[in-house]
Structure formats: structure tokens, C-alpha cells
């Protein structure tokens, strides 16, 4: 198979891409773009694509509110959330060498949920809701640090990380349930919607601040990304080829937390994407991390984008949380892939 390798900055960054990757990524890029445009056109009333273009380029102004204030930030937010969740899952799965790992399972999402539900239960009406994302990110980060700290015993082994993550996650979920039961009905309803995950009410300021958060992990992923493929072969082997396993593990864990925590902060507890997007990507291309990451991001974006599109158009005038549909749409596709490639 045809492959190209790019080496930059004195070999500090190296990226290997194949022809197959190029084709498949192209297809997914096209798919995401198509759903994105469809999202801008559809809603309560259908706006033809030509008018959407004219609105965005400023040649007409009649759809300014619907297209530019409501649909555009919401579609962009769906893309960012899906991409972040997908890549967070990919990193975790490679890191702990376990295909079942995902931010929802090892406790990052439940940490963020606990942060958010605590905020909704005690802060609603007292502190402005715009600080909810901060509380969620802090929750996710604290959870990850706690998991890492408890797993530490002259280094962290992936299996302990997962087990302790699962344990802490259960504990935090119990706390969330406790708070749901104890708080008054109005706040409980709000918490439930948050836990389901929804892209509703995305604004431009949400989109820009989310982009800033997502920019932080990218340089780390570029520099350390190639090491991740080696770690998948086992810790001893990684050490023998000169990888600082513990440092790399910590950095990747933090990157995953940043991505998953930010996604949870702005869209709530959307499940499934972090688990499935990387699996779908792996079925389609071979495992060179940078290429895989780009494809996973596209697939995650596609899943959330289409889930939100269905959620806000199929049951009009109802606008339903997108988290209800991510699994409903992603799971059949994943099962199809498993079936199609069952002999590989």
C-alpha cells in the first residue's frame, strides 16, 4: 500500500499517512460537510442552500437570526463536541490497550457530570449559568487526577487505571443520583437534560470558548502522538525503544480529559460517541495515530451532528436532547461494520 511519511522539526513530529486513509478521510469529510449544510437548511422551516450561502456571505439578511444565531453555532458546536469525544476515546483506548475504555466508562464523564449536577443543584439561580462549563471541566479534571493518584504505585499500569476509574465512576454516579433525588423538581429536570446531553442553546461565545479549550491538547498530541502506537505493543517494548512511558501516559490522560471534559462541559453527558467513533475509524484505516485521530474526529462530528439534526427536526415542534439519538444512530452503523468485516 502506498504510504507517505512526513517528518517535521528535526524529526520531532512525524506523521504517516496512506493512500487508503486519504480516500476514506475524504469521504467522511464530504459526509460531515453534507450533514453540516443540511443542518443549516433544515429546521422549523426549510431554507434553500442558495439562500443559506447568500445569508452567510451577507448578500441577504432575512435569515440572519435563524441561520447565524441559531443553526450555525449549534452545528459547529455539534462538530466540535463529536470530534472531541471521539479523539478522547481514541486516546484512552490506545493508552490502556483496552477496546472497552472510553471517557464515559473510566470516570471522566461522571466527574464532569458530578461537577455539573452539583452546580445545577446548588448554584442555579445564585450563580450565572455561564459558569456551568467551568464546573463541569473542573469535575472531570479532579476525577482524572484522583484516579491517577490512587492508581499510582511507582508508576501507573493501565489495568489499574481502568479498574480504579470504574470504581470511582460508580461512586460519583451514586453521588449524582443522590443529588437528583434530593433536589427539587425543577432542578432535577434540568439535571436530567444535562445528563442526557444536548447541543441546545449553543451560542457563538460557547463555540469560541470551546475552541480555545480544544486547542490546548493539540500540540501535545502532535509531539507525542507517534509514541502512542508503540505503547500499544506493551510497556517493556516501549521502554526498550526509548519512550518515557509514565510521562507519556500522564500527558495522554490529561489530553483525553481536556477533550472529554470540554465536550461534557458544553454538551452534557453525550454517551457512546467516545466509545464507538474510534472503533469505527479502526475498522476503516490502519493504526497510525495522527491519521486515525483525524478520521475519528470526523466520525465523532458526523455522529453528533446527525443526532442533533434528527433531535431537532423529526419531532417538530419538539426539540429533543441530542444525547437521546447518538447511540440510536451510531450503534446500527457500528453493528453493520462488525458484520461486514467479520472475517478480517
Amino acid at each position: 500500500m502506498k504510504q507517505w511519511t512526513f517528518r517535521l522539526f528535526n524529526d520531532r513530529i512525524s506523521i504517516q499517512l496512506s493512500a487508503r486513509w486519504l480516500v476514506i478521510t475524504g469521504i467522511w469529510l464530504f459526509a460531515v460537510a453534507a450533514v453540516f449544510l443540511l443542518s443549516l437548511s433544515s429546521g422549523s422551516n426549510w431554507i434553500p442552500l442558495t439562500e443559506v450561502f447568500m445569508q452567510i456571505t451577507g448578500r441577504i439578511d432575512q435569515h440572519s437570526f435563524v441561520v447565524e444565531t441559531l443553526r450555525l453555532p449549534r452545528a459547529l458546536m455539534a462538530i466540535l463536541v463529536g470530534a472531541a469525544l471521539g479523539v478522547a476515546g481514541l486516546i484512552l483506548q490506545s493508552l490502556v490497550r483496552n477496546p472497552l475504555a472510553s471517557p464515559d466508562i473510566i470516570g471522566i464523564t461522571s466527574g464532569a457530570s458530578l461537577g455539573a449536577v452539583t452546580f445545577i443543584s446548588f448554584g442555579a439561580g445564585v450563580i450565572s449559568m455561564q459558569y456551568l462549563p467551568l464546573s463541569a471541566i473542573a469535575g472531570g479534571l479532579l476525577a482524572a487526577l484522583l484516579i491517577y493518584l490512587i492508581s499510582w504505585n511507582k508508576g501507573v499500569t493501565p489495568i489499574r487505571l481502568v479498574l480504579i476509574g470504574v470504581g470511582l465512576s460508580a461512586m460519583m454516579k451514586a453521588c449524582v443520583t443522590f443529588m437528583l433525588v434530593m433536589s427539587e423538581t425543577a432542578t432535577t429536570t434540568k439535571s436530567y437534560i444535562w445528563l442526557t446531553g444536548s447541543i441546545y442553546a449553543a451560542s457563538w461565545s460557547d463555540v469560541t470558548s470551546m475552541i480555545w479549550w480544544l486547542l490546548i491538547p493539540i500540540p501535545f498530541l502532535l509531539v507525542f502522538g507517534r509514541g502512542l502506537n508503540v505503547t500499544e505493543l506493551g510497556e517493556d517494548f516501549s521502554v526498550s525503544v526509548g519512550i518515557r512511558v509514565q510521562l507519556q501516559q500522564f500527558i495522554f490522560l490529561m489530553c483525553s480529559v481536556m477533550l472529554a471534559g470540554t465536550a461534557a462541559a458544553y454538551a452534557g453527558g453525550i454517551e457512546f460517541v467516545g466509545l464507538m467513533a474510534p472503533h469505527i475509524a479502526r475498522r476503516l484505516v490502519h493504526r497510525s495515530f495522527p491519521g486515525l485521530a483525524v478520521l475519528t474526529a470526523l466520525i465523532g462530528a458526523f455522529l453528533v451532528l446527525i443526532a442533533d439534526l434528527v433531535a431537532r427536526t423529526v419531532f417538530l415542534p419538539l426539540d429533543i436532547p441530542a444525547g437521546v439519538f447518538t447511540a440510536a444512530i451510531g450503534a446500527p452503523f457500528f453493528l453493520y461494520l462488525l458484520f461486514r468485516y467479520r472475517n478480517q
Partner: protein
Amino acid sequence: MNKKLLLFIVACLVSALVLAACGGSEEESTDATESNSGSSAEETESAEDGTIEVEHAMGTTTLEEKPERVVSLYQGATDTVLEFDVTPVGVVESWVEVPMYDYIKDDLQEVTYVGQETQPNLEEIAALDPDVIFASQIRHEEIYEQLSEIAPTIVNETIYDFKETTNLIGQALGEEEKAETLIADWESRIADFKEKIVSNENWPMSAAVLNYRADHARIYVTGFAGSILQEAGFEEPIELQGQNEEIVMLNDKEAIPQMNADVFFQFMEDTPDVQKNFEEWTAHPLYENLEAVQNDNVFTVDEVAWNMAGGLQAANLMLDDMYEYFELEQ
């Protein structure tokens, strides 16, 4: 080894802190609602040029002229707007009897539904081109900016404080006198009820609003029904007096004595699960000892008027029920 011990202690401390935070919450939240009820509608400054300024939970909003097209995003506002003889152009769906409660369905035949109270459809609202939107902070804080771009948005802090709802709607519609009349009417009805209930041989009485669910029971101490009962002179449930509770969840039948009061007003969904749970609770030996049960003062009330609607009309319907239960002349 020591390190592990240390970590274990840290973990314990963290969970203890979290639990403590959970426990502390309730007092905080009751405090919050109490202070809320004090900060009712501020004065409206009607400027000379005909604009209307309304101060509300999320700021001050200016309306250029008396609004005609009204959108209501919570049940209490939908109910109360109708009292001003204004038919909203858009409302959110009701919780039961979907899409709208039977008692106001006829007044809202032409209305457009804009989704659910928890996640109203912004595009639908924008398409209605409203002049004013009534929202609630607890539900719609995050979309306040977007709503304000569609139309001036007036925000009530809670969803059940019907007097605040009446005041805010009155100000926004430029009908403050009407609002004052409506509230004065309400207050004279309450005064009348208080005067007549005294003749009841058991007065003063404590009252509990009970809600049976599929797996537990709740006592609503404040909230919509609870605050109206207190306004009408009823005391809090006997075991809960002076505790400043909002809602008490009873997860175990051993807690039945907490429900104790001279009168019960109960409501529940009409599903087999709930009915079964209700029968189990009421068949429990502890239930027999409660004052209301012994005096045969248990009333099953309409959950829409008593809990789900939260507007001025609903409050009046609730008061009608109370006259009826205690066999008082209006």
C-alpha cells in the same frame, strides 16, 4: 504502604466532603427560595414616550410599545396571561393532558405550540415574531440571550410564584392596575376563606400535600400548593414545623409518621405502578395512626390545579376546591 494509606484517607475525605456538600445543600436552597420570594416585582418606570420598562430576575427590559403578540414559555405564565384577556400566540406544551390542560384548552385553540417547557424550540418562537416573551430563570437562563434577540424577554425567577408572574405580566402588558386588581381579588378571597375556616371545629389545622410516586412518596411543604395553604392559614405538617423544608422525600414506609397532619391533600398519576405503591403505603399499619386518616380528612385533589399549572387561575381553582372540601360557602 504508607503512601497507600494516605491515598485511602484522601479518598475517604473527598467522599466525606462530597456527602457533606450534598447534605448542606438543602438548607442553602431553601434559603435561596425564601430570599427570592422577597424580591418581588420592582416598580415599573413608564417613561413619557410610551415605552415600558420592566425589572425582572435577569435584568431590566424595555418594551417600545404595548405588546400584542405574547409567547409564554412556562405553564404559570400561560395560565396567567389569559387572566389579562390576552390570548398568547405561542405557548409550550403542558406536562399532562398534552398539549394543553383541559381547564384552559378552550381559550387556546388557535395557539402555536413551541415545544416543551424544558427545551422550547427557538426557531418556532422566532417564526411567531412575538412582541414579548415570558420565561422562567430556572428553565430558560441559558437561552435568555437568544430569546432577547427574538423579542423583549421578561423572566420570573421561579415557575410557581403566581403573584410574581401576575405582576410581571401586568407590567409588561402595561396593565399594572389590572394586575393589582387580580392580586387584590385573590387576597380578599384568601381573607374570606380564613374568616370562614375558623368555624371548623378542628381549626387551627396543619396540612400536608402528598404526592405518591411509583417508588416513593413526597411531601410538598412549600412550592405552589404549600405556599397557598400557608397563606390560607394552614400550618406545616406536624413533624416538619420550623424545619424550612421544601420537599421531603419518603423512600421508606417507616417514614410515614413524617406525613402526619390534620388534613391530607394528595395527588398522583393514574398509572398501575403508582396506584399499587399508593395502596401499599395506605395499607401500612403506621398510616392508620395519622391524624388526617383518623379524622377522615384525606382529599384527593386535581394534580393540574394543585401542582402542574402554577398560575393565578390554577390558584383560584385550588381555593375553590378548598372551599368545597371544608363545606364553606363562597
